[in-house]
Structure formats: C-alpha cells, structure tokens
C-alpha cells in the first residue's frame, strides 16, 4: 500500500507554499496532490516519496497532518481501463471515497490513488491484479 498525507491548512495565501517549502528543504518530492476546499480551511492530500519522514517534518512545523493507506494503482494509458478498475472494485463491494491520478505521457502509463472503504476485507491485490493492474507500494512509487 502507498501512504497519503492529509494536511489541514487554513485557506489563505502562503499556506501551501509553507508546506512545499519545508518539503523541498528536506529533499522530499511531491508525486501527486489534491485539495479539498471547505471555506475557511482545506485539506491537502499528498503523495510524497518519503511519507513517514515528511509527516515528522510537518509535525515539527506544527501543522496537523495525518497519514493513511491508499490504493496506488498503475495501468496502461488505454481507453476503458478506469471503467474496468472501478467495475472490479464495485463487484467486491469496495467503495471509493476519493480518487486522483495522473498520466505519464512518455511511459503511456496512468497512476491513480484511491481512498477506499473495504467493508468485506477482500484481497485487493487479487481483486484487481487479474485485470492487468498493479498495486504499488511506497518503494515502487519511488522507483517510477
């Protein structure tokens, strides 16, 4: 499983900058991020190359930061792949709470990050591997 950081930030100029600045100062790389806006604050969700160290660095900065496991799935950049992936998860009663992703045009590969609920505790690897997808852990992401 990959690890996602969720950071609580006030919705005002300079807050995201302060986070990205401290990460770069500590030689950390941001792979993907998305923001949920809630008026006076927002949650920034990030995939970084060293999530555990990043959480410590952010804690030292005094920001509220939580880490959770997310599903990082890689697939060939081809039409219909997302439909296939979501179908296989839906069939096993796995709920997708939030998702974001990117496509690497040079490698013709897509990576998507899924926050999920798996009430029946199904084996996710088995569920989606059969459809040609790969689940990536932190190390594999780092090697991309």
């Amino acid at each position: 499983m990959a690890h996602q950081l969720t950071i609580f930030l006030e919705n005002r100029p300079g807050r995201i900058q302060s986070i990205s600045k401290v990460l770069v100062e500590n030689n950390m790389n941001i792979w993907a991020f998305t923001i949920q806006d809630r008026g006076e604050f927002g949650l920034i969700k990030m995939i970084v190359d060293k999530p555990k160290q990043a959480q410590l660095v952010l804690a030292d900065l005094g920001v509220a930061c939580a880490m959770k496991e997310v599903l990082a799935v890689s697939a060939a950049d081809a039409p219909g792949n997302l439909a296939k992936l979501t179908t296989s998860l839906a069939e096993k009663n796995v709920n997708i709470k939030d998702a974001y992703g990117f496509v690497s045009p040079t490698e013709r590969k897509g990576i998507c990050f899924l926050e999920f609920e798996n009430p029946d505790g199904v084996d996710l690897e088995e569920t989606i591997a059969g459809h040609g997808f790969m689940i990536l852990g932190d190390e594999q992401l780092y090697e991309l």
Partner: protein
Amino acid sequence: MEVNYWNTGIETLERPALEQLQLERLHHIVEQAFKTPFYQKRLTRAGIKSPDDLQTLADLCKIPFAVKDDLRQSFPTGLLSVDMAEVVRIHSSSGTTGIPTVIYYTQQDLDNWTDILARSIVATGCTSRDVFQNMMSYGLFTGGLGLHYGAERVGMTVIPIGGGNTRRQIQVMKDFKTTALHITPSYLLHIHSVLGEYDTTRDDLHLKKAFLGAEPYSENTRIKLEELYGIDAYNSYGLSEMNGPGVAFECVYKEDMHVWEDAYIIEIIDPETGELLPDGETGEVVLTNLIRSALPLMRYRTRDLAYVHPEPCKCGRTHRRLSRIQGRTDDMLIVNGVNVFPSQIEEVIMAVPEVGTNYQIRLTKSGSLDKLTVQVEIYSKMFTGDLSALDALKGKIKDKLRASITINAHIELHEPGALPIFEGKAKRVVDEREKL
C-alpha cells in the same frame, strides 16, 4: 400630548411619600430575607438583626451589595424565602460557569410584576384597543412572559408569537393588524430590510408603537426605526434578577426611562470603590427589588452602566429617569438580545477534545443581525485527515454551544497555533459590530 396613567396615585406620588412607601416595602423584603439561609448569614454579619435596624432609606447602605455569583452560590434554594408550594413560576438564566441562576415568584409577586408592566405599557400611550405582537422569546427568559401578562392586564389583544420566523411575523402583523411590538432593535431593523422579499411595504402594516429592549442601541437607531416604520419606539430596561422587563420604561415623551421607584430602589455607584454617586453621574446601576417576596434581592449590582436624572418629566410622573445603558462593567456580550459570557463559550470549547484550548470569539453584523463566530484550533493529535469528521466536529461544537447559550454560532476551524494567544479572556473577544 395625551398622558395616561395606569395607577395615577403611585405614578404621581410626591417624593417624600414615595420614599416612605419604599421604606415600608424594604422592611417587608428584609423580613423575607431573614427567612433565607443566604441573607440570614449576610445580614447578621453586617450587624442587621431586624428590619427595625433600617430607620431611614439612608440606612440601606448597611446592607451589603449582592452580585450574580451570590445567586449562583445560592442555587437552587439558598435565596428562597417561601415554601416551594407558594412558588407559582420559575425563571432561570444559564450561568456564566455552568451553574444557572434561578428566580422564584409567588402569585402575589407575579401580580406585582404584571402591574408595573401594565403601567409601563400604558405610559407609552397603548390602550386595550392595541393589538400587541410579542416577538421576544417565551420560556425561561423573562422578556416574553413578562410583557405578555402586562399587555393582557391592560386588555390589549396579545399575540404570543415569540421570536424568529420572519415570514410568519410579517404575515401575522398583516393578518391581525398588529399595532404594537415588543422586539429587539436589531430584529426590527432586519425585518425592515426583508419586507420586500415578502411583498410587503410599510403601508401594508398598521404599526404604531414598538417597545425596544434586550440590547443596547443609540438614539440614532431609535430615530431610524421610527422613520422606517412611521412609529414611536420606546426604550425599556429590566433584568431577570429584578423580575425581568419593566424595571424602567419610557413614557410618551421618550426622554429616558422612568424607574418604577415604588417597586425598585435604584442606586448608582462607582464600580471600583462601591461609593454612591450623585444623580447625573454615570456608574453601575444597583437595584433593590421591593415587590418580590419569594426571592428577596437587595442592592444587586447589575453591571450595567448608566445615570439617573431627577428633573421632573413633562408627563407628571415623580419617578426619576434612567439613561440608556452606556456599557457593562463585565465582559458580558449581548448577541441579538441574548446575554452571553465568554466563559460560557470557553467552557464548551474546553470540553471538546478535538480542538485546542486557544480560541477567539468574533462578533460581526450580517445585515442588521449579530453574527457570532467561534474560532478554534484543531488539535494535531486528534486529526484523522477525514473531512467528514471535521464537518461533524463543527456540528458538534455548534450543537453544544446552542445548548449552552441558545445561540447558533458559526464555527471556524483553524490550524494549530494560528489564533493569537491572549492572557486575559476579554481580549479573546473581537467585536466588529457597528454600534446600533
């Protein structure tokens, strides 16, 4: 101008006779006070053994001041002087630190209170022909029920609608041709700003008079409201410790409020030293209730700042007049007519583990109405990263605050350490409201 009295004899009583009446009634209250554990101890310690120790009104100063904390410390029955079977009504306000204050009334006490409210209403020129829409909250708050019974005694047609629900308020005003209102000035301003949304103009209404109370406002706001609606608006003053509204009320001349001195002894003191101040000087209002037997309360420090002027009024009443309330000696906030202490908000926040102990209270205007925003910091260790948990947290704080202070607050979540750190609690309040 036409001047009407409810009780001509009392309202125009010559000062010496009025003061004699005060002394007689004070003796009765002291007698009642000796029946309570609180005053037994306090009066004895002050060297007062019986009502006879108060020979003249000047001896009143032998009685120690009472403060809100005395009411809390005496909760629930430390100040009750009659058998509970004689008590016919309870009013209560939420305390500043969780312990409420309670006021008891016998049937006679309610009759006395109702009578001075009838007197107040008649002093504004209202009669039994008026249709009275009482837009103050009913329930434990004294503002609603107090005026309600007073208006019934005058014989007005009373509409006990209570606060809120603007659409219905306007509809009822039209349906029953309401002529008189009891309302907070900010709500009356608000209603005017939304009349158009309900396809209503001032000409669809039949309003003549409004009794304004429960929050401070200026002469300019009164004039503005009178012009907006084409009405006469009257200032009123009261507090639950002194029964509720009707301690002082304006007459048709609207030149400050007559304190009903047969029912209350008013003193103005220097809030720092406790020394009596002469008429005309602004200080803390101290009141002695002369018409309530069930819960005697003497020389109660209201924390309200005002002054008394003794010049005779054109209406012929001999009861002196009280100025508008100029401010408070404590940190009490008035939000849309509801009294709130910052400590009540603090207590709620301290009991929520998901947020830190630093907070800020902001008061702003949303249109004519007050908006209370409570800013809190989320507590890092309790942060799960779940947005719905944060939404639920806001809802939880909002619910707890509503339960404690009866106000719908707007809750804002902030980063740990983002709010300014203050030493004193008063500074946690940022009041950006324009004064009414």
